[in-house]
């Protein structure tokens, strides 16, 4: 490899054939370059008389943001596409962790540049900490085909494999419909939202569009008083109710009964998780004998009410 200095204009940045990283923040790297310059030269190669970038997109973008030019580069002599890409891959592999979307980009390029599928599964998946199965390989190729906006969210919010996999269950147009609805939710809630939507859709044989246009959800989406986060939360709960109708009705009845009994907040009354057992539990905190007695008296008073026996109907 030959070390050279190239002005940024000499590098054709529109050619992204070897690029695997898209969503990064430049601030820290730009600050570093500003202070000490570019210490680690990016890799470039020549194609049809042009220099194209093989590795070091973040560094070059940071230089571009600082108008820092010319820059030192290492020029890879004429090699095939796969061989050139592998240089970039191994350079990065040693230096950092890849995100899920970057792994998808890598695997898609290995396939595109003609690497044998079996070799990819056996040799590259373990290097990327991915289980060695075609199921996983296929899933990552599906992530590669995701819309840019979804890739960005998966990358930035560090979505795990199972959550990204959930999005493969939807068509591109469905994903475009879902994404704005879930973008403000926490990761667990995104999972619950998307999983419920998928499962209700599969169970009932209804397309996503039809579910999202159904009465209750339509009203939520059309309500001008709700913020996008509030909308997402309300839709998530509606979907949960559709997905688990019996469990939701038990939870609702239990809550109603708690309210009917005017159960005090400082004494927690809970069924077993998912009502798996008939037992109920009561917990409260106390600092003195007096507080303890007060809670017991309160409980005794609650137990004497007629409605109290209704707690045991959750069998």
């Amino acid at each position: 490899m030959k070390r050279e200095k190239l002005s940024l204009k000499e590098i054709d940045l529109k050619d992204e054939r070897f690029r695997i990283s898209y969503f990064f923040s430049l601030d820290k790297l730009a600050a570093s370059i500003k202070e000490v310059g570019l210490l680690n030269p990016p890799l470039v190669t020549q194609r049809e008389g042009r220099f194209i970038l093989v590795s070091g997109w973040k560094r070059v973008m940071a230089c571009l943001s600082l108008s820092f030019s010319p820059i030192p580069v290492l020029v890879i002599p004429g090699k095939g596409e796969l061989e050139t890409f592998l240089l970039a891959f191994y350079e990065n592999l040693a230096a950092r962790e890849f995100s899920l979307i970057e792994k998808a980009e890598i695997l898609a390029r290995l396939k595109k540049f003609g690497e044998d599928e079996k070799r990819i599964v056996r040799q590259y998946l373990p290097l990327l900490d991915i289980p060695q199965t075609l199921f996983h390989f296929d899933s990552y190729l599906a992530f590669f085909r995701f819309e840019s906006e979804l890739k960005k969210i998966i990358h930035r919010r560090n979505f795990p494999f199972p959550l990204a996999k959930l999005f493969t269950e939807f068509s591109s147009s469905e994903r475009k419909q879902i994404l704005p609805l879930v973008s403000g939710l926490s990761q667990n809630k995104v999972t619950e939202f998307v999983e419920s939507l998928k499962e209700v859709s599969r169970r009932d044989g209804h397309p996503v569009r039809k579910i999202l246009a159904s009465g209750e959800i339509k009203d939520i989406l059309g309500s001008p008083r709700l913020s996008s986060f509030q909308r997402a939360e309300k839709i998530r709960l509606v979907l949960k109710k559709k997905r688990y109708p019996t469990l939701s009705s038990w939870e609702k009845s239990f809550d109603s009964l708690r309210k009917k009994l005017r159960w005090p907040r400082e004494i927690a009354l809970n069924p077993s998780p998912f009502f798996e057992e008939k037992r109920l539990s009561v917990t409260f905190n106390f600092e003195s004998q007096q507080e303890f007695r007060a809670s017991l008296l309160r409980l005794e008073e609650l137990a004497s009410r007629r409605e109290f026996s209704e707690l045991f109907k959750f069998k």
Partner: protein
Amino acid sequence: MSGTEYFPQKIFIEKGSLNFPLTRRILKNASRVPVEVINHPQDLIEEIKEARDEPSEEKKYLLLTRQKGKFIKPCPCTPHYLGCNYYIINLNLNCPLSCSYCVLQQYLANPMITVHVNIEDLWRELDNFLEKKGKKAIRIGTGELADSLAIDHLTENSSDLISYFKGKENALLELKTKTVNIKNILKAEPAQNVVIAWSLSSSRIADREEKGAPAVEQRINAARRVSEKGFWVAFHFDPIIRYPGWEKDYEEVVKSLLKAVDPARISWISLGSLRFVPVLKTIILARFPKTKLVYDEFVKGKDGKLRYFRPLRLELYKKIVGFIKKWGGQKIRLYLCMENDDIWRDVIGWVPRGKESLERYLALPLGSSRKE
């Protein structure tokens, strides 16, 4: 399979497993099947695990190897729920059927249909095991990590097992199957401590979710023939699966079962509703994308497995127990598989005090009530 006998496309034999009598017997019974001797079965297993179309890929081949660990293990059951102190003999692994819900898809590290050919080691291990157990009644079977009879036309293991257990007073052998591969059973002399058991579902579930398995009516007919031959029979409604109209379908199965098979010859009927570890859901959907069975109301139990929400399970069990009683099975011993005290109390009316109490309930009929 659907009533036809399974033959693999190829038999792989691990080099060290060539000279066993069971290997020779299988090769004789599958004389037309190509054979390849391999040094490292693990390489082949890994290759099959990598394949995109795993469900059919893994069923194409039969692997003959040796059991290098123990043949006999306690049934793994599940934590926090009532177990039945069952023991399993890992003679074969996996089966040629492709049931969408099968736990083996996730449970077994080796997805190939595998026969452990060093059966002589099993007899030695069983001798020691039974000696250690002394007079304690035990139930043991080959149908947990395999179907006991699905490849019996190749292995003829059922004949050897029945011969071995005959006269072993405190041991009860269960051979559990979904198939109608009963040729060797019908040739064998019935033993009072051997139970031939069938897994049953509704016809709709058998049709949609149990690819390759014989129809429920065929299974019942096979059970009738085995029972008439003089063997005890048992049935496992496991997994019971809900769908619109399940009540009618399950009642039909119970009705035809109890019409065909004399209830007095039924050792027990077990009930277990569909349950699975969360990762199995992903596997089921990847391999059987059209199935809808995972979309019902499953919640996480104390053991981390997904089960139907308790009132739904209770309804399943109560109704099926009702059907069994309605159609003549009032005296049949019933038990629940991997259920909690509350469900036992509500469905069966009592709760076993620990695993051994349930074992006694199921195995003690080895005594007087079982004798003809």
